[in-house]
């Protein structure tokens, strides 16, 4: 795709296209549609419970062993596909877009449910104790989606973006090590970015706060 329009008409067209593409991460309430479909189409959980009964037999144990080997192969292949590079500018833009368009949620559990419905392959948000309700949206870097949550830290909006460990890579300017976890530090236009991998997740904490404060906040995030 041409990202460098060559004349003002094309630049205007491209700016309009880009702004429209941002509507893709607009939060929407899926709850009624989800309920209606789950009522009319037998739920996946029902099928899974039937399968779980089958797993209890000896044939299930053999199939599980084969499945485990298959899963390991898939994981090796998936990891070799390579992570997406997320630059400091992209993460700062993600923060600005998230703060602008995230939808307020009634509680942390509502926020987690909503993100799980939007991004079933993305890990759950860590457990966070917040004084104020969070807001959520689905962000993108390249074509890869991330679960994004805006929260209030020291009266400042901070974005927490989540993906599976290994899905994104960054090029930090420095790092801080705490409790055996390495926190990558970088910034863009006054926005500080702290990235780290823990508990099978890739995290980015982004906001206009000192990097050390973001690291301290990162340490409070529980599985």
């Amino acid at each position: 795709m041409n990202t460098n329009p060559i004349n003002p008409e094309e630049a205007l067209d491209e700016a309009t296209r880009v702004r429209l593409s941002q509507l893709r991460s607009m939060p929407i309430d899926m709850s009624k549609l989800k309920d209606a479909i789950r009522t009319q189409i037998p739920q996946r959980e029902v099928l899974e419970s039937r399968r779980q009964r089958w797993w209890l037999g000896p044939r299930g144990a053999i199939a599980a062993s084969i499945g485990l080997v298959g899963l390991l192969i898939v994981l090796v292949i998936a990891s070799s596909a390579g992570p997406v590079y997320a630059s400091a500018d992209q993460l700062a833009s993600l923060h600005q877009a998230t703060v602008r368009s995230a939808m307020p949620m009634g509680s942390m559990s509502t926020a987690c449910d909503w993100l799980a419905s939007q991004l079933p392959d993305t890990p759950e948000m860590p457990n966070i104790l917040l004084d104020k309700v969070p807001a959520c949206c689905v962000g993108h870097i390249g074509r890869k989606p991330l679960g994004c949550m805006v929260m209030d830290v020291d009266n400042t909006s901070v974005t927490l973006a989540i993906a599976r460990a290994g899905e994104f890579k960054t090029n930090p300017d420095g790092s801080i090590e705490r409790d055996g976890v390495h926190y990558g530090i970088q910034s863009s236009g006054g926005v500080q970015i702290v990235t780290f991998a823990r508990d099978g997740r890739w995290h980015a904490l982004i906001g206009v706060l000192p990097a050390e404060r973001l690291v301290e906040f990162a340490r409070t995030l529980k599985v």
Partner: protein
Amino acid sequence: MKGRPLDSDAATDRFYRTIWPHAALLLRTALLLCHHQTEAEDVSQETLLKAFKSIDQLHEGDDARPWLLTILRHVRIDRIRSAAAKHTAVSLDGADMDPADDESPVVSDVEAWSDPNAMLQQFSNTQMIDGLKALPEEIRWTLLLVDVEGIDQQDAAAVLGVPVGTVKSRSSRGRAMLRKALLPLAQELRMVR
């Protein structure tokens, strides 16, 4: 290649694996086409149920999005026609088919938008959606597919049942029409000259 119809468990499993992940796309598209949340939810629900019933027509490995959007488009058109026949209250605003391919030249608005990226970012999502909803249905469909959802122009042409060239011209014309719809607000906010 249609293959044998799937049994119920296999169809359900496949539905939740290949179709359900696109439910948000369908609801978002329906919300941007319809004028009421309930109507959009009904259209999305009908689309998903139809997709479930004919899931064996979707080839394994194919991108499900154009297939689902084609079903959604047929559901929407059927509802518009049905409502027109019954004179019910389903919204028909902008459903006219089709001033979209009006060949009158688009007046350049480059001068009004001195810094288009920054200026367009100042509009909220709600304002952008209101602008979209002011456009004729076929133009809106084109922008929703190509710009909002990033569907390939070839696939968008298949969904809309028009040549690729028509998709290209409607995209360009639609963006200009959207900016024109946003212009009064931009002037009110003193963003444009």
